[in-house]
C-alpha cells in the first residue's frame, strides 16, 4: 500500500499545475468568462497541446490511457483554477462513454478527434422529473430502418451549447424507470428536429436545454441500445472526477480564508488571533482532509469492476465531499465577512462551484440513502 504518484503521474501533475498557475489566475479567469463562448478557446487549445484531452484513450487513439488517479490529478488542478472550458463534459463524460459504451469502430473514429481538440461532447441524461435517477428515461427511441427516431427532451446538459455532438439516453424499450431498454445515442445538434438553448449556470459554466422532435439517428450514431450499467460506470468515474475538482476548490477556499485571517485586522490585531475563528478554521481543515481522503478513495475505486462495491464507494465519497464542501464553503464565506459576499472576490466563486457539484449526479442525501440501502461500508451486510 502506498499513496505515492508514479513518475508519469508526477510529471502530469507538474504540467497541469503549471498550466493553472500560469494561465488560470482569478483575474485571468474573469476575462475568459466574458468570451462569447463563456470560456476561452485559446485555453482549450492549450489544454489540447498539453495532451489532456486524450486522458481516457489508449495511445493508439491519441491518448495516454489515464485512469482514476490521472483523472483526479487533472481535475483537482482544474478545481483550483475553476476551469471554464468543457473538459469535464467532453473528456470525462463524453470520452468515458465512448470508451465504455460505444462500438470499437465509433471509438476508433471519434477518440482521436476528441484528443485532438476537434470534437467537443456533452452528455444529456437529466429529464424534467428524473432528478438523479439515470434509469428514469421518458425520451423515446423508435426503431426506424437501421436507425432510430428520437422524441423527448434533456435538461441541464452541461456544456451542451458548446458541444459538437451530444450523447444522450433514450428508451428503446421497457417502462419509464426500467433498467433495461435504455439506449445511448449520438445526436448532431444542428440536425433537423433538435432545438438547443444555452445558458450560464450559477457557477459561471454553461449548460443547455435540448429538445428532440422526430430526430433521425443513423445506425452509426447508435452507440449502444442497452447501456445503463455502462453509463453508471462512466457516471461513477465522473463523480470521482468531480470529487477531485471539489477538493481543489476547497483547498483554495481554505488558503484564501487563512490568508485573510492572518492579514485582516480588527480591534487592533489580526482576526486570526481570535480563538473562536481559530477553532472554526481547524474544523474547516478537518473537513478538507476528510474530503481529500475520500476523493483519493473514489479515484481508486472508480476502476473497481464489481459494480455494487464501486457504487457504494463512490456514493460514500460523494456524501463526504458534499458535506465537507458545504461546511467548509459556508465557513469560508462567513470568516471573510462582507468581502466574501462580493462577486469581485474569488471565494464566492469557489463556493458556488462546490455547491453546484453537490447537485450533480446525486446530492449527499441521495448517495447516503443508496449507501444505507446497500448495507453501508463496514461489518455485516444488512
Amino acid at each position, binding site marked *: *500500500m*502506498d*499513496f*505515492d*504518484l*508514479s513518475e508519469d*503521474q508526477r510529471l502530469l501533475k507538474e504540467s497541469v499545475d503549471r498550466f493553472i498557475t500560469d494561465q488560470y489566475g482569478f483575474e485571468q479567469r474573469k476575462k475568459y468568462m466574458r468570451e462569447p463562448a463563456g470560456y476561452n478557446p485559446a485555453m482549450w487549445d492549450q489544454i489540447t497541446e498539453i495532451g489532456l484531452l486524450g486522458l481516457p484513450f489508449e495511445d493508439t487513439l491519441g491518448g495516454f490511457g489515464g485512469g482514476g*488517479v490521472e483523472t483526479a490529478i487533472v481535475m483537482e488542478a482544474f478545481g483550483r483554477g475553476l476551469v471554464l472550458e468543457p473538459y469535464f463534459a467532453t473528456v470525462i463524460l463524453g470520452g468515458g462513454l465512448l470508451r465504455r459504451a460505444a462500438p470499437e469502430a465509433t471509438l476508433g473514429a471519434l477518440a482521436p478527434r476528441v484528443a485532438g481538440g476537434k470534437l467537443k461532447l456533452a452528455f444529456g441524461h437529466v429529464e424534467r422529473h428524473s432528478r438523479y435517477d439515470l434509469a428514469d428515461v421518458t425520451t423515446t427511441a423508435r426503431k426506424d430502418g437501421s436507425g432510430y427516431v428520437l422524441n423527448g427532451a434533456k435538461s441541464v446538459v452541461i456544456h451542451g451549447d458548446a458541444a459538437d455532438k451530444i450523447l444522450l439516453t433514450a428508451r428503446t424499450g421497457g417502462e419509464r424507470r426500467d433498467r433495461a431498454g435504455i439506449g445511448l445515442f449520438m445526436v448532431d445538434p444542428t440536425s433537423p428536429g433538435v432545438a438547443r438553448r444555452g445558458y450560464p449556470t450559477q457557477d459561471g459554466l454553461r449548460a443547455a436545454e435540448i429538445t428532440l422532435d422526430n430526430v433521425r439517428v443513423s445506425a452509426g450514431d447508435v452507440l449502444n441500445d442497452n447501456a445503463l450499467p455502462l453509463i453508471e460506470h462512466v457516471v461513477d468515474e465522473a463523480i470521482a472526477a468531480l470529487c477531485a475538482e471539489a477538493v481543489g476548490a476547497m483547498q483554495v477556499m481554505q488558503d484564501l480564508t*487563512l490568508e485573510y*485571517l*492572518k492579514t485582516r485586522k480588527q480591534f487592533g490585531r489580526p482576526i*486570526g*488571533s481570535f*480563538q473562536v*475563528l*481559530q*477553532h472554526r*478554521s*481547524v*474544523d474547516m*481543515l*478537518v473537513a478538507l*482532509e*476528510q*474530503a*481529500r*481522503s*475520500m476523493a*483519493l*478513495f473514489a*479515484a*481508486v475505486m472508480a476502476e473497481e469492476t464489481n459494480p455494487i462495491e464501486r457504487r457504494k464507494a463512490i456514493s*460514500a465519497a460523494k*456524501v*463526504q465531499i458534499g458535506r465537507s464542501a458545504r461546511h467548509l464553503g459556508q465557513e469560508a464565506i462567513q470568516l471573510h465577512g462582507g468581502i466574501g459576499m462580493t462577486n469581485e472576490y474569488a471565494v464566492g466563486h469557489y463556493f458556488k462551484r462546490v455547491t453546484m457539484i453537490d447537485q450533480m449526479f446525486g446530492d449527499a442525501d441521495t448517495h*447516503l*440513502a443508496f*449507501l*444505507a*440501502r446497500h448495507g*453501508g*461500508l*463496514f*461489518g*455485516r451486510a*444488512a
Partner: protein
Amino acid sequence: MDLNFTKEEIAFRDEARHFFRTAIPESIRAKVAEGEGLTRDDMITAQRILNARGWATPNWPVEWGGQDWSPVQVYLYQDEMQQANCPSPIAFNTSMVGPVIAQFGNEEMKRRFLPATANADIFWCQGFSEPGSGSDLASLRTKAERKGDKYIVNGQKIWTTLAQYADWIFCLVRTDPAAKQQEGISFLLIDMKTPGITVRPIVTMDGGREVNEVFFDNVEVPAENLVGRENKGWDYAKFLLGNERTGIARVGNSKAKIARIKELAALEFAGEQPLIQNARFLEKLAAVEVELKALEMTQLRVVSDERKLEKGKQNPASSILKLKGSVIQQQLTELLMEVVGPYVMPYQREFDGKNEPIVGPEYATEAAPMYFNYRKVSIYGGSNEIQRNIIAKAILGL
C-alpha cells in the same frame, strides 16, 4: 498509488487476525465487545500473551523488545487487534512510560523497568493532571524537593486512571519553583506502596470506577527514580504525548462497534421490521460509516507518509486523527444505545455480586454506561479544544 496491501502485508494481517482471535481468551474479548470493564487480571493476562510473542511493545527500540515494523505493519497490528476486541496493551506501560524510559532513562533504569513494564509485572498509572492543572498542565504544583539522595513529594494528582490497580506511578512534579513554568518540571517514577500515598476513587457518571485522586504527603522517593535530567520533564512529557500518532484514531475499535451495532440492529424491532431495515436508522449509521472510512483513508495517508517524513515532522492530516476519531467513537456509542431501546434503562451494576438475573437482553446492560463513559474520549489526552488550539498554531500558523 496502490491502496492494496502487498502480499507480505496481507500475510502479516492474516497472521495478526488469527493470533488475536485465538490466543486471547474469548471471555476477555467478549467483555471488550460489550464495553464491560476489564479486571486487573484480564489486562495482565492479555498483555503477557502479547508479550510472550513480542507483540506487547512493537513500538519500542528493538533491543528492548520492539519489532522494527513498517508503519503499515503497525497499522495492521492495531487495526486487527481492535477489530478482534482484543484489549490493547496497557497504554501507561507500553505507549507512555516505556518509550520515555527507553529514550531518556539510564542503562540501569532501563534494565530495572523495561522488561517488567513490557510484561506487566509492573502496572503503571499516570500522574499528570492536578485539580488546578487540566488543560493548562504546565501550571502543575505537586512539588518534589531534593533532600540528599531523596526527593520529598507533596501534592495531589487527579483523574489518575486505574491508580487502584497500579504498582507504580510516573509523575510530573515541580522541582524548581523559581523557573519558568515549563522549565521547572521533572519526570519521576514512584512506587505506589511508598508511605504517604493515598488513593481515593472518583466515581464517574456511568457508575464506573476508573479514575482516582492520588495524594502525596511527604512521600520519599529515591533520587535514582528521576528519569533523565532534573527540570527536563516537560520535554519528556511532550515526547510521550506526541508518541502515538496513528493508533489514536481507534479506527479498528470503531469498525468493531459498527459490526456490533449491525448485529444488534438485526435483533431489535421497530414496528414490523428489524431496525436493520429501517431507512432512517441505516442512514444515520451510514453517515458515521462514511466519516470512518474517510478517517481510515486519512490514517493510511499518514501511515504511508511516515516512511518519508523526517523524524519530528508531522503530516498535517495526522493532526485530525484524534479530533475526528474521538467524535466518531462517541457517535457510535450513541447509536449503540439507540439500538437497544428501552432496555438501556435498568441500572444493572446494582446487581453486581448479587445472585439475581439481569433485566432484558444481555447486550443491553452496558449500552448506556458506555455512552456516558465515552464522553471522556474528547476530554482526555488534551481535550478537543486544546487539540484545536494546537492545530491552529502548529498547522495553520494562526
